[in-house]
């Protein structure tokens, strides 16, 4: 290259000296094993050459400005991803080079920072979800959910999973995609606009082939209910209860699924520490009862001692994992969502139990305020009897267009059921509205007025 490239430290004279050491006449000599017809003579056509930091930053900033960010508008979207305030110290800490640019902690002597964080994270997650043990995180909630179904199959040696109609439709899609190939049998129906869930139906459907019942809590329509009866029914039939939590902040206010009998609790951890990021990276939470720990997928960090007797931490039970077990592994996963788990753990440490409860209670209070205000609009009804920070409104017309028109007015007013369930037009008037601590009274007011005008 004629100009310097800021990330490449070799100078041309370095290159010459190194070729001499190697005994090669040119760089091309090092690529001799590539078949001649596949060796490109020059740069790939129709792609630009290198650009300065300033130029790249400008280009990316121009793209960023084409998006309406959540902080710029009254914002009420949820349905599996939530806008919460993340303290500035979280992002500061995860950017420390020793965390940001560290490798997977396979060399524990020089990775105790990452490992201790994972051990603390596992404990926090287990306690939050009400389970005995948790792993070091997975890709996201949707893939964790599928891993839970596979794990239930492994434990029960049965192939049929009952998916609640309250399960996030993307999670259902992921499971259906995988089941097409693995042959798992999945029972699922789209939800109805009813304050009651389909728990009774699920209980009735449990049989001797059922590996697990998968239920979301709070569910995709914001409904919450006691899972004890479901757990009891599943256990009576030798099946497991898998609970899915997409809004972990809720567990600062409502009972933990593990405490109601769930055997495996999975979730999307994005709410705590991570931010929206257009859907990723997020982090899958995965916890279960102690007795199932060796059937768990994903990385696990455990306590041990070093040669000098000091407490230390290592990745453990890796005989479950792909790099040891290859095709016999419990999962093909070889990544956790390390930096997101770190952010989750830092945010949770800043909150502590006291802060988490205060956060949850503020979320709920704002949601109640918004629900009452919106339900008072002409033609609008509130579907939920109970909810945490998210509820479903039934509008007098299809909610998809309403949402789009609200966006044109600069209001990001929830997620329409038409977007989530395109094949279920009968519930197309439903609008899922999430209200977190970031929503102000003024935001609610703007939203209510805009919605009223759109419906007029």
């Amino acid at each position, binding site marked *: *290259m004629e100009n310097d490239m800021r*990330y*490449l*430290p070799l100078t041309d004279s370095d290159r010459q000296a*190194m070729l001499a050491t*190697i*005994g090669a006449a040119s760089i091309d000599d090092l690529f001799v094993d590539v*078949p001649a*017809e*596949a060796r*490109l003579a020059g740069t790939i056509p129709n792609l*630009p*050459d*290198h650009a300065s930091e300033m130029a790249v930053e400008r280009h990316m900033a121009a793209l960023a400005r084409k*998006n*309406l960010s959540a902080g710029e508008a009254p914002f009420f979207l949820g*349905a*599996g*991803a939530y806008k919460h305030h993340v*303290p500035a110290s979280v992002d500061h800490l995860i950017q420390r*080079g*020793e965390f940001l*640019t*560290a*490798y*997977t902690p396979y*060399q524990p*002597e*020089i*990775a105790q920072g990452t490992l*201790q964080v994972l051990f*603390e994270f596992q404990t926090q997650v287990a306690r939050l979800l009400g389970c005995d*043990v948790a792993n070091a995180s997975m*890709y996201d909630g949707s893939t964790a959910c599928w891993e839970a179904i596979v794990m239930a199959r492994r434990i029960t040696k049965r192939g049929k999973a009952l998916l609640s109609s309250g399960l996030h439709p*993307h999670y259902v899609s*992921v499971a259906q995609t*995988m089941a097409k190939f693995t042959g798992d049998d999945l029972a699922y129906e789209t939800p109805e606009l009813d304050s009651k869930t389909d728990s009774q139906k699920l209980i009735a459907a449990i049989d001797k082939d059922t590996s697990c019942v998968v239920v979301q809590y709070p569910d995709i329509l914001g409904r919450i209910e*006691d899972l004890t009866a479901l757990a009891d029914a599943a256990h009576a039939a030798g099946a497991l209860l898998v609970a899915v939590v997409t809004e972990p902040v809720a*567990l600062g206010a409502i009972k*933990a699924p593990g405490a109601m009998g769930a055997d495996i609790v999975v979730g999307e951890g994005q709410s705590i520490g991570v931010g929206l*990021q*257009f859907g*990723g990276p997020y982090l899958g939470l995965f916890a279960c009862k102690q007795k199932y*720990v060796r059937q768990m997928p994903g990385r696990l960090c455990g306590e*041990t001692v*070093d*040669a000098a007797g*000091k407490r230390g931490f290592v990745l*453990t039970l*890796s005989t479950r994992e792909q790099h040891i077990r*290859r095709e016999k592994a419990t999962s093909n996963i070889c990544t956790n*969502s390390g930096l997101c788990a770190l952010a989750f753990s830092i945010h949770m*440490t*800043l*909150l*502590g139990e006291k802060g988490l409860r*205060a956060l949850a209670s503020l979320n709920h209070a704002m949601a*109640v305020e918004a629900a009452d205000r919106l339900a008072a609009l002409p033609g609008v009804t509130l579907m939920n009897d109970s909810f945490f920070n998210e509820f479903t409104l039934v509008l007098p017309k299809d909610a998809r267009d309403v949402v789009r028109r609200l*966006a044109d007015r600069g209001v990001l007013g929830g997620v329409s059921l038409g977007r989530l369930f395109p094949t279920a037009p009968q519930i197309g008037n439903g609008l899922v509205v999430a209200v977190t*601590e970031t929503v102000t009274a003024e935001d609610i007011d703007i939203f209510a007025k805009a919605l009223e005008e759109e419906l007029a």
Partner: protein
Amino acid sequence: LEEKLIFEIGSTDTTGVDFAVAPKGENRLGDLARADAIGLPGLSEQETVRHYTRLSRQNYAIDLGLFPLGSCTMKHNPRLNEKVARMPGFADIHPLQPQSTVQGALGVINELAVWLIKLTGMHGVAMTPKAGAHGELCGLLCIRAALEARGDARQVVLVPESAHGTNPATAAFCGYKVEDIPATPDGRVDLEALKARLGPDVAAVMITNPNTCGLFERDMKVISDAVHAAGAFVYCDGANFNAIVGRVRPGDLGVDAMHINLHKTFSTPHGGGGPGSGPVVLSEALAPFGPLPYTARVEDGSIHLIEEENVGEEMPQSFGRMSAFHGQMGMFTRALAYILSHGADGLRQVAEDAVLNANYVLRSLDDVLDAPFGGSGPCMHEALFSDKGLADGFTTLDIAKGLIDEGFHPMTMYFPLVVHGAMLVEPTETESKAALDQFILALRSLAERAKAGDEALKGAPYHAPRRRLDETLAARKPVLSWSEPDLAAAAE
């Protein structure tokens, strides 16, 4: 260097956040209010900052030194990319916002997709896979979908002995039977054995190229042709794409699917184990089967999103969704900034410098360390050594742990499995000659000590935050979460 656990220093009464007081109102939680103590300790902001700052200092990281980690490509993470990913227009948008409000985000996905397609010479790319192994899964699902579309229920996937563990695990995870392909003595796939095994039951062959011995599979095109002739597909593990980016396009070698670890070739930060991102480039035969959602630029220049709603008209053969939402957007912004910074010329230089650095290490050390395939021609971006010639009782592990005391991260060890006591060294292109020379000096001295039988080496590391850790104890009696000491004692 002892940092207590948050459970030992925090209390459930302490918090590092404060909130406005919640407006008083009716509770709508039904009867589900959580009454039990959760057991989550809090710390003040200052204590939190100290805890994590101190913990971080027990880690090794690229920001501290060289990472000679074969097959894992740990290169410099530019800080511009961190800045870009945090622009509110990218970091603070919801995946389900109306499309009109996220055109810039969809534009990033599309622009990155175009680069990946052109760099690999392929036809399409699935952007949603969350990591490399997830990308492998995506590739195999495309292959299965394509086979099923033609009513062909093949059940076997062939994998070379030297493959990454994820290859067989992935194949098994989506229901395939896995069979090994042997290697030749010079470290490459045994072409004849492969040809002999091909048949109507073989769905795909998974190959890593450059392979995990650090060599280019010279016969790649011949292999692809044979696989295609047998009605199967070629999956290429893209972990080593760094060696050839800008100089060789997998599409020209007959590859049908290849995942790209954005954190390897395109330098998104490894973060102590993730998050990753594993887009999969696809051949014309496989592209129609890719997962949802998918982006496409339409005539008016805007970017269009294909998901469940419109998939029937636009992409009817898609195998469906493999994760919620759009993939690892935060990694896309970083990778795109990296790619634009390098450009077509810079990326070509990446491959050249990566290969140059690896050969420099190989030839600077092959007099003291056995290089099993040192005679098979130049290596690509990683240099492979074995433990042959070390004194009795001395192992690759000893050299690896010795590197820690020299201020380096160990190389990849005992992989690939086809070489005894393998040491796989990948310096990457972002290391300066001075850094390489220091590393070579350190490894040379360790090799000499291990050959001379220096017993002190067996106790290494001595200068790390911890000595060697008891992994057996950890696995035999797993302690996976913290308990209050009295509870823990009672449980014994």
